[in-house]
């Protein structure tokens, strides 16, 4: 009985690993077709000469948001927002941003860049990310109870913050994204 149950769990885990790989292949395919597996496109975004990255991200967020909030209302999915704090998200975000500009890839697009033949990504970039995450693991005990807790707000969402129904936020955010995309196109960017 026990053995049978663990076999069922094992099969389910294996199936989920296969799904992970399948989603990854589709994600990598879309990133490459979108052009963001290339240094030139990413650095062009940060230099504000090429808005491909923002267009992909905003259209993904708009599409994804509408779908997952409908599915949430139907009871099909449960959301899983990350906990955060000012100390985590502002400081970490800014350090990440500097690395984003210096490396020219992010953790997802560097995997795509490797698949696209980027040798700078495969050598220096990948090695650097592994060293950087290892360094964080090494200092984690020293920061986890102080600076990472500064301004802690937990897994707060915008609707919870404003104490409103989800759609009171989803609709204006959708309108804002559409307006930004419209203005980018009209400016010829």
């Amino acid at each position: 009985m026990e053995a049978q149950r663990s076999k069922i769990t094992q099969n389910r885990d294996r199936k989920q690993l296969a799904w992970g790989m399948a989603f990854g292949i589709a994600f990598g395919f879309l990133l490459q077709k979108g052009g963001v597996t290339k240094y030139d496109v990413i650095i062009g975004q940060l230099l504000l000469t090429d808005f491909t990255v923002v267009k992909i991200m905003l259209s993904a967020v708009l599409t994804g948001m509408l779908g997952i909030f409908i599915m949430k209302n139907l009871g099909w999915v449960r959301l899983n927002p990350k906990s955060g704090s000012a100390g985590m998200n502002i400081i970490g975000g800014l350090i990440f941003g500097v690395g984003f500009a210096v490396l020219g890839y992010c953790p997802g697009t560097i995997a795509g860049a490797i698949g696209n033949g980027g040798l700078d990504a495969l050598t220096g970039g990948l090695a650097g990310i592994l060293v950087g995450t290892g360094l964080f693991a090494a200092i984690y005990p020293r920061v986890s109870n102080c600076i990472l807790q500064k301004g802690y707000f937990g897994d707060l969402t915008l609707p919870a913050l404003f104490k409103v129904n989800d759609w009171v936020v989803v609709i204006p955010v959708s309108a804002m994204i559409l307006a930004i995309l419209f203005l980018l196109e009209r400016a010829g960017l």
Partner: protein
Amino acid sequence: MDYLQEIRWSPYLAGIGIGVLSWLSFLISKKPLACSTTFAKSSGMIEKLFRGDVVEAKPYYQKEKLAIDWQWMLVAGIIIGSMISALLSGDFHWQWVPSAWSLSFGDNAALRVAVAFVGGICIGFGARWADGCTSGHGISGTMQLAVSSWISAACFFIGGIAAAHVLFSLAG
């Protein structure tokens, strides 16, 4: 099937595709698309090869277990999917120095690799500090309207835009 052989799709098509993919990953795997934890786990697994089980005792690896999981397979899949797309369109090239880099800093591969290494350290460290990256916070977290993700995504771009302008102004 011509569109599979196109080098570039409209960014909106790629973005909508990623949005639909995130519906499916929530629905089927109950997980958001995210990448950076995988690099932390891989870093720990590599360290474990050299230093043994003591690595697993580190508090951070108690929180993020050293094992190949769903997200690890996702990141491996990204490499494969990107390669399939590039090969189908003839857009696959081995390249040490990207052209936007060489226009400003020359085509010395060692310089580019060294700078990529430094940038990689910052982005790996920052991603773990912020608990997410451009996909985990920037796409999957913002679409869930998480406050942590909107702040992080804003800081990724504030830091990135500022640093890119400083870096490229050095080249003159």
